[in-house]
């Protein structure tokens, strides 16, 4: 089956959202990008984000990712911030005891959006 079901599906994503979002909000390198928005709405978006990284069902296109992050690129979003997010994805999945080969797959999916997210 898909990576999404292997990782544990919807319940796994729910568990991951809190852990991932805590890491992001505590990280002074990137938390400014997440301030202006209501924490709760933001959490729902983080869930969309993680579902996507876990290969779950979503309808986002590369163009959506480009548009969705353009205002952040205008605020200086760059590769170092992207790397920080990649770090937190890995650490979150490690904390949830997801096997390393599945973490690598999730990381590859997230990595594949780099150009679009950073508007390159």
């Amino acid at each position, binding site marked *: 089956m898909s990576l999404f079901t292997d990782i544990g599906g919807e319940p796994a994503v729910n568990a991951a959202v*809190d852990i991932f*979002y*805590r890491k992001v*909000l505590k990280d002074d390198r990137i938390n400014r990008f997440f301030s202006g928005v209501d924490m709760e709405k933001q959490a*729902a978006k983080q*869930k969309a984000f993680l579902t996507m990284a876990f290969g779950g*069902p979503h309808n986002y296109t590369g163009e959506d990712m480009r548009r969705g992050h353009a205002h952040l690129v205008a605020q200086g979003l760059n590769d170092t911030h992207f790397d920080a997010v990649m770090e937190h994805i890995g650490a979150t999945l490690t904390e949830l005891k997801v096997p390393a080969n599945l973490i690598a797959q999730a990381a590859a999916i997230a990595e594949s959006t780099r150009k679009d997210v950073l508007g390159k």
Partner: protein
Amino acid sequence: MAKVIYGGQSYECGEHSVLDCLTAQGVVVPSSCRSGICQTCLMRAVKGEVPERAQEGLKPTLAAQNYFLACSCFPQSDIEVVLPEAGLNRLAASVASVEYLNADILGIRLHPSRPLEYKAGQFINLFKDKATARSYSLASLPALDEPLFLNVRKVPGGLVSNWLFENLKAGDELEISEATGDCFYVPGNAGQNILLIATGTGLAPLYGIVRDALMNGHQGRLSLYHGSYDIGGFYLVDELKELVRLHDNFSYVPCVSEGAAPKGYVQGMVLDAALNDYPDLSGWRVFLCGNPNMVHAAKKQTFFAGASMREIFADPF
């Protein structure tokens, strides 16, 4: 074939989601992921049955009010829907009593002109005139058939609060809206611990929520912290102490942020006091009401302390 009713029009839904059905007809419904996750396409059903799948992942308080995600809603029978910001109906209410709860807080009891469906902790809008309204939280319990109970703080220079302080008396007629808001107790998970933090009249919704939980037989801890600059700011103290006497699982901690705290009070900021007593909030439900700075800080700090974002309910005002 199920129909979707929106804005007085009825649309054939077929095999489509409510979102696709409405957008195909030119109705503007905000949406983003279209796969039931981002919650941008939130709508509310006012009539008809919401399929379970359309509420997956929603906060329990939203689900309890028939909110659903339009992109994952495939109705089996006719359903009437509105966008979340759709206006609330208005109704008349008569003032049953007005009393000072302390020097700056008025306790107002109202009889609505028709039965009002609400949950303790939600709020109504109270109209000074046709165009001027303010929100006030409900400290009463519908199950006890009490009059609606509001706690209004006198805001310096505030239009509506001062008008209420100066004019309101028993027997007056007012206009109010139906109740809304998602800060309330949802029965279930009766063993879960619950932390409640308020400043000022943020106590109003939490007083309602605590009593609602107790009446539902909640077994887990219910820890209420109320913050004020000085001891003049506390109110409903006797009522809360009586609840402490009656219920082993309920505790009430009044916190004084400025100056010395007499015996029975904690000196310090209310959020610090709560987190000092409960540094690990994993698995807890959390309610936060009152001063916006306190509420925003508390949302973050209780989340960092382990509470899940889905279990933090807040009204800043």
